[in-house]
């Protein structure tokens, strides 16, 4: 799985990341490898002292991403499923919408699959109980159904509208 030529290098290599606002973050190689994007980039450059520029990610968001990756790098092997779940929930629990938004975009860009899933689930949970009208407002979508068409869609999914 390691792209670097030998494991000692992999153990010692530190990856440097530069945020949009020019702040440098240094992470362990294994931590960075959770990002498919970084993994591909490092496969080309090898272990380098040059910081990888992340033009669209602010330092605040990058710090959160790193926090997530540092916790998860060993989670699968050493931490119980229950504890990982609790940690994830705590991370997103009081997250404001702006952070949620920017974090999911960053996670998608960096291709950190677990984090993308966590973000998707968090946003899905916040909208799952909302009405159709509210969804249209949130995502700025026009209702392009005629009244008859709308009635038909409702009828098709009758059970889902509950009691």
């Amino acid at each position: 799985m390691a792209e670097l030529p030998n494991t000692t290098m992999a153990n010692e290599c530190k990856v440097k990341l530069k945020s949009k606002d020019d702040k440098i973050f240094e992470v362990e190689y294994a931590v960075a490898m959770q990002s498919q994007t970084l993994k591909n980039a490092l496969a080309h450059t090898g272990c380098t002292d040059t910081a990888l520029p992340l033009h669209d990610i602010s330092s605040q968001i990058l710090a959160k991403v790193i926090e997530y990756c540092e916790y998860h790098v060993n989670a699968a092997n050493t931490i119980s499923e229950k504890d990982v779940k609790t940690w994830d929930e705590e991370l997103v629990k009081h997250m404001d919408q702006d952070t949620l938004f920017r974090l999911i975009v960053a996670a998608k860009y960096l291709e950190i699959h677990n984090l993308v899933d966590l973000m998707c689930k968090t946003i899905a949970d916040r909208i799952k109980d909302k009405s159709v009208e509210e969804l249209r407002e949130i995502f700025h979508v026009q209702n392009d159904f005629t009244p008859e068409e709308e009635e038909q869609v409702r009828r098709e999914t009758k059970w889902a509208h509950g009691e």
Partner: protein
Amino acid sequence: MEAPEEEIMDSLWKDLPKDIVEMVLLFLPLASAMQFKSVAKEWREFLGSNCHYRTRSAVEQRTPWLFLCTSGKFSCAFDFSLKRWYKILNPPLYRQSIVSASGNLVCLGNLVADCRALSLCDPVRKLVKSLPPMSRIQFIHKVSLNLQRDGAYKIMVVGENDRAVNNLRGLVTEVYDSKIEIWKMSGETMAEAKFGLDAGVWINNRFYCIVEMPYGVVIFDQKRDLWEELEVKMPAGCNDMSSPCLVECRGRLLLVLRNSSTESGNGKVQIWELMKKRGGLKEKKDLEWGLLEEMPENIEVEFMASSRLGDVSDRLICCGVGEWVCIMTQLSGSALGFNLVIKKWEWLGKDPAFPQGRTCHLYAFPLQPISHCQL
């Protein structure tokens, strides 16, 4: 995950890239996703597409529905994410009711009268498929559907031959293989076994169910095509009054019963687990039933009050749904859940059909709607 109450969503979400919006929709519970089809034409198209369905079922392990097969027009489904009950139309098949379920499919048949052919149904997509008749079985004693990861399925049936013609003593077993679409007789004939009323569970292609008189567990090994007895002593206090049910949760075999023995139970509802003997040898066969959890007093009082477990007409109905052990009774409305991971008891509310739909034998199954099997 608890969402903040009454949250007003900012206008920034309109700038969320379309591919991310589509991913978010994959994580919605099915009922929400179906409701949101009404948002706009593009949403309706996406949420109803095969691509969406396929990717949905590939997404992280979602907790299935608790599916209560009540008789009558509807069955009821409980969604753990939305904490709501839904009514799902029962397929209108003559003289057939739901007898088993696996993945997104339910199996229909008749357990009280002559039944030579079964049907399969996807109750959410409203698709029904008739299966070819069984080769010999005419009266079903036990039936169970097992959906595999690749979307193929097997159905195991134990039953009797044509009673008039029959010289052959004992019950025969037939297995239907969806890959070749035929019923195959199992080599094994069972001596007359009295099966319990629970539906039984599959773990690693082995089917476990309860037999009575005396109480025990038998296993049908599908790969080796044979029946064996679980050579493990049942918990003390397992008898006619205890209504034992086998439950499967995340590959663990559990037994729920009302322990009427005065030394070990005192009428309490208990959850036992089949586990390796403490300090025993590392051989696979060294197993015992260990007490995992007992219903706490305050919950038990309420549970007993709404049921009639004291008399023989009521019985426990249990099944495993994700990490939840779900416990109900034939005659009471309220469903109870015990979460194995966080060790918490929670009331799941009354199913909307109650008190109707309880006259016939009640079954409960985990159902994963829009899962991977295409009928």
